[in-house]
């Protein structure tokens, strides 16, 4: 279902339908640290094909190593309305939201795009994204595609992002459990103010998920942009990959425990084993053949999703897709074994509902 819906979403060519298109908007860029490729990522936002927008960068600390890069880009593109805000506002335990409060309050326009610093976009990104906005839409998000993966951890990360997560976004949307990705959220500030704005989200670890929930509680829809955004993957080690997905898994578990509980049964090995057993019992089908056929169809779906997102396929993807399937069950067990997450060196405890306990060191 996810593969089909994703293919239909990215395969269709839709004409812009929204009166919102070309409204001036403010792009908020919370930045922390100088990660590899930061300059290239940010440059794509200085060269967008859009009539009127402002770029607001925010750094929690004045001494952040990203500061010279941002200032350099602002000098290089003087025609772009860009500014840098230093210092965060401690409104809750979520450091990203703290870093976003000042730019959110100072944004000139009603239309806000929150965009992480580790993504790159196409020139027509804003036009296509704003075209999705209709009066019944509260927030437009995007699918993230992992690119430039070079290490073992990064390959695994790409396999997770470009198959599992992308497909799940569409499966969840089909069941009206829309997911919002914080790397790209377009919404109206006036609408967000109806649920208390950005400061309401600072209590949650997954502020993106809660933003989507809040919009839905206002009776508005969540939409996925027709263009994925690219995330160049750093030189991840296996531990980095594991830690990151453990955090995501525990966030998902805190926010929506029921779907996460059933996750293993919709991954390759458990569902294939269950199907093989069932067909062998009921219809006397050879379980080995069943499992092999099931795995081939599964892989074909994975590759179809990757092809739709990245437009290219490489042979090594098969290995990493299989590795992801093998790792998914131990990952799931690890997710359910605790509630703490490690985020940028800070250990935090996620409570049911996604609330964060204040960081504890150690």
């Amino acid at each position, binding site marked *: 279902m996810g593969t089909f819906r994703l293919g239909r979403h990215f395969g269709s060519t839709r004409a812009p339908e929204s009166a919102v298109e070309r409204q001036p908007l403010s792009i908020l860029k919370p930045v922390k640290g100088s990660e590899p490729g930061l300059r290239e990522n940010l440059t794509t936002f200085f060269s967008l094909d859009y009539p009127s927008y402002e770029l607001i960068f925010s750094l929690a600390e004045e001494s952040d190593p990203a500061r010279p890069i941002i200032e350099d880009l602002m000098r290089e593109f003087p025609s772009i309305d860009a500014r840098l805000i230093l210092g965060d506002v401690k409104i809750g335990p979520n450091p990203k939201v703290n870093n976003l409060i000042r730019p959110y309050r100072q944004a000139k326009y009603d239309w806000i795009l929150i965009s992480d610093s580790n993504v790159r976009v196409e020139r027509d990104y804003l036009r296509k994204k704003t075209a999705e906005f209709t009066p019944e839409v509260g927030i437009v998000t995007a699918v993230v595609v992992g690119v430039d993966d070079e290490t073992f951890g990064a390959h695994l990360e790409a396999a997770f992002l470009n198959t599992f997560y992308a497909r799940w976004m569409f499966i969840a949307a089909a069941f009206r459990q829309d997911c919002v990705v914080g790397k790209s959220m377009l919404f109206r500030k006036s609408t967000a103010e109806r649920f*208390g704005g950005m400061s309401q989200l600072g209590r949650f670890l997954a502020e993106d998920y809660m933003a989507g929930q809040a919009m*839905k509680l206002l*009776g508005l829809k969540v939409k996925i942009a027709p263009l994925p955004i690219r995330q160049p993957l750093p030189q991840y080690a296996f531990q980095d990959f594991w830690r990151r997905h453990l955090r995501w898994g525990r966030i998902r578990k805190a926010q929506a425990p029921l779907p996460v509980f059933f996750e293993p049964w919709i991954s390759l090995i458990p569902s294939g084993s269950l199907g093989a057993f069932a067909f062998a019992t009921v219809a006397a089908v050879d379980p080995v053949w069943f499992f092999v056929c099931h795995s081939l169809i599964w892989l074909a779906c994975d590759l179809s999703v990757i092809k739709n997102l990245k437009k290219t396929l490489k042979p090594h993807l098969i290995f990493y897709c299989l590795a992801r399937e093998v790792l998914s069950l131990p990952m799931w067990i690890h997710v359910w074994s605790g509630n703490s997450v490690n985020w940028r060196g800070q250990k935090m405890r996620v409570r049911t*509902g996604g609330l964060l306990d204040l960081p504890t060191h150690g």
Partner: protein
Amino acid sequence: MKEMPWLADLHTYSTFSIGKLSIPQLVDAYGRRGFGAIAITDLFYERGSLSGRSARLLNRSLTEATFPLYMEILRSEARRAWYQYSMVVIPGFEIARGSRRSSVHLLCLGGREFAPADLSKTDLIQSASDHGLLAVATNPRSFKSRKPHGPWSENDRAPASSELPLIASSQPEKRAWISGWKTVLTCERSEHAILSAIRERNVGFQDTMEVKLDLFPRADGGHGLGLRHRGRLLGDLPARPALRLDTGS
């Protein structure tokens, strides 16, 4: 001077718990039908019981996480409801403790602070009172047959609770929510006046199955929205005292 009688639904659920409509949709639905006030009272289940855990797991209950969001949306929608429809939106919630042997549903009107559901019955009422809330009996099941029930379910009636006031409950989580029993008020359209009228049991009840909302001519030459009962305008309907609660004693 008393106002014309107007309808209020003081027990409604939104998508924060078991309702079908979001809070803005509820405001529009009641506002367009000329209601003078609604109270949005989503369920707040306890954590300890199986039903409470299930409700929270299935997003059919307010939680500590969603409560501030709920209050913010209520605040902003109350402003809109007043400007757009001259309708009062009273914030509230329904504390639910449930098991087969003992079930407690306590409606808290005017509630703006988080009140945990994991208290004993007596402490629940005390806690509601301490927070300045109006505690109201909920789910009078046989209202149509004029046999009001006590504030607790049939399995567990508490005589101490007999002093609690009563309002109409229309079970708005169902599709036919608009046509159930409603509370009729004649007081000023403000939260304080409405809660005072309920406290003083200065309210009436009306089954809106029999009532049609209709335009009636006003003294100033304009038209107002009023209640018409079997063809007769209920413009001079006196406020009736609230039905006495059956304590079961």
